[in-house]
């Protein structure tokens, strides 16, 4: 009879499902295979480029007969731009000033920086650095854009993500009302036995906790956290270091013509 479920129909259906399942499986497998991994540490790349630009900067490089020498830094120029110490990086008196906003390197001295990024520049004279004496220079450049700092702040973006994830469907409303009723009942029961709170306040607190508990799923909150982790924390999770750091070999040219081997270390702390 027409419309009856026969063995033929069942077998046909099963085969159709089987074929569809295999097609889906193969498509999934193909898309898995063609993933392109293009993850790069942005801060590392930025730090390398900035360090390379700094060792070519006209306000720092050694100059002779009108020729500027990249990677060769003039001591008198370094002295005029950075804070100097003869006791290495352990010289607390000097290095606490490096981070003092009053001693930050101004734009008229070094105009190279990234927006909303704190760049710590350290230069060490390797030929004049031992246990008794160590010549180092240090400075911080900062370029801030307050509006962007607020707009792109990870907490603000986390809030925006939560607002975007907020479910306004009828089903969600029902879930929230249910959670309010259950939470309210529990709150009223607990409130009635605790002196000073009472049934009404307990019910109100219970209802509020219930509603808040249903606003977002744990997956939505996890997603918003992972999407808005600040770059320094990502860097710390990936590399174990809170800031990016790279050392580039340089030469330091003294006034008497002596050339010392040195190293420039640049650390970036990207605020947004």
């Amino acid at each position, binding site marked *: 009879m027409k419309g009856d479920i026969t063995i033929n129909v069942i*077998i*046909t259906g099963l*085969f159709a499902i089987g*074929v569809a399942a295999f097609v889906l499986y*193969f498509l999934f497998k193909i*898309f898995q295979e063609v993933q392109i991994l293009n993850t790069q540490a942005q801060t590392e790349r930025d730090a390398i*480029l900035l360090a390379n630009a700094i060792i070519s900067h006209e306000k720092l490089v050694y100059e002779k007969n009108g020729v500027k020498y990249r990677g060769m830094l003039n001591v008198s120029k370094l002295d005029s731009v950075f804070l100097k110490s003869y006791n290495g990086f352990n010289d607390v008196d000097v290095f606490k000033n490096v981070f003092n906003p009053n001693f930050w390197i101004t734009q008229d001295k070094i105009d*190279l920086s990234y927006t909303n990024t704190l760049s710590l520049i350290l230069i060490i004279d390797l030929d004049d650095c031992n246990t008794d004496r160590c010549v180092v220079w240090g400075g911080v450049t900062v370029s801030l854009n307050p509006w962007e700092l607020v707009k792109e702040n990870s907490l603000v973006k986390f809030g925006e993500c939560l607002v975007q994830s907020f479910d306004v469907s009828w089903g969600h409303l029902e879930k929230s009302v249910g959670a309010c009723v259950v939470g309210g009942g529990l709150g009223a029961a607990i409130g009635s036995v605790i002196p000073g709170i009472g049934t009404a306040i307990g019910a109100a607190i219970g209802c509020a906790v219930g509603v808040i508990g249903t606003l977002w799923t744990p997956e939505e909150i996890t997603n918003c956290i992972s999407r808005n982790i600040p770059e320094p924390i990502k860097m710390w999770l990936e590399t174990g270091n809170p800031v990016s750091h790279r050392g580039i070999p340089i030469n330091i040219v003294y006034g008497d013509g002596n050339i010392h081997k040195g190293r420039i270390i640049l650390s970036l702390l990207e605020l947004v």
Partner: protein
Amino acid sequence: MDFHVKKVKKVKLQLEVKWFLAIFIVTIITLLILSRLVSVALSQLYQVVAESSSENVAIQLASLMSAAGTVTGKIEIEYIPSTSTLYDIKIGNKKVETVAKFAQIYIQKMPAESKFCTNFSEVEFTDVNKFAIEKWEENGLSSYIISARRISNEG
């Protein structure tokens, strides 16, 4: 008569099952062969799209703009990310914002941003795919400029 009808139905059912089995096996073998070919074709497509994507061009352009600062004196850098894709570029606040305008409708036109550390002035370009970055020194100060234009496949 009734016995003959039942027998015919049974034979028909067996035939259909065989047909389905045959189609099923052929489908699997075909998919196995195609899966490799399709993944190679898709990889190539993804590669082309990734290379000329907004994100890649923003990163490359910002890196080149920063790299212009790594030379003393004068430098000129030319960059052509793609001859078939056009870009809208916005430079300001030490950031490059790029939108790749792919001709294919199934590729989203998503903007991407990247930072640079040198001093380029604010500028905007529409429908361009060739960039020229220049740095020169004047009176002991470095100056930077970026220009852009549109080129066709023939260059």
